[in-house]
């Protein structure tokens, strides 16, 4: 009964490749988020979607493109991966923009 799930858990890839991370929530929430956590554990929001509409886009490079096919899913596609993209990416969801955010287990991305 995982509330917020992400796939894959680990992703190791070469520079220049394109990859996708998927997120699904079964909480019935209408708002989903992507966060990036760097090697110093600093956690920063990248995007948020409310009812499939983009609400927050935190000056993330154009190489990152979120897609929300429905309210329960928010995927993250990354083009032309760079070394600096190596991090842990967390998906989260909430009911409404002001609701408590619940996080997924994270996807550990390593770009070589």
């Amino acid at each position, binding site marked *: 009964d995982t509330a917020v799930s992400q796939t894959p858990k680990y992703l190791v890839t070469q520079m220049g490749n394109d990859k996708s991370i998927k997120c699904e929530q079964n909480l019935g929430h209408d708002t989903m988020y992507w966060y990036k956590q760097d090697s*110093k*554990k*600093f956690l920063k*929001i990248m995007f948020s979607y409310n009812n499939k509409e983009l609400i927050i886009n935190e000056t993330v490079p154009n190489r990152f493109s979120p897609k929300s096919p429905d309210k329960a899913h928010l995927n993250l596609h990354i083009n032309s991966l760079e070394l600096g993209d190596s991090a842990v990416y967390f998906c989260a969801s909430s009911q409404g923009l*002001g609701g408590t955010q*619940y996080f997924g287990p994270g996807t550990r991305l390593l770009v070589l």
Partner: protein
Amino acid sequence: GENVGLHLPTLSVQEGDNSIINCAYSNSASDYFIWYKQESGKGPQFIIDIRSNMDKRQGQRVTVLLNKTVKHLSLQIAATQPGDSAVYFCAESGGATNKLIFGTGTLLAVQP
């Protein structure tokens, strides 16, 4: 684990003692504050929240205190247990998008 080698502020306590983790937030317009716990290899887990119209809120073994005058938030954990060992993050939000801004995190190490 993932926390080895990190240079986060660290609080080391004996099992059974009370812990106090402090956080200074930046935006005086923030009106919602949350504490998250992140265990090694996992996503942040919601612990407790407080709105700006309150200065104290209690949960099970945890208490959050908010001092808006000095923009300070604290998390008190009573009778700390080994399972409380984790990185603790405070987060603030406010404004139309309710974007969550996370603090740098404090590593709580509980000695048996």
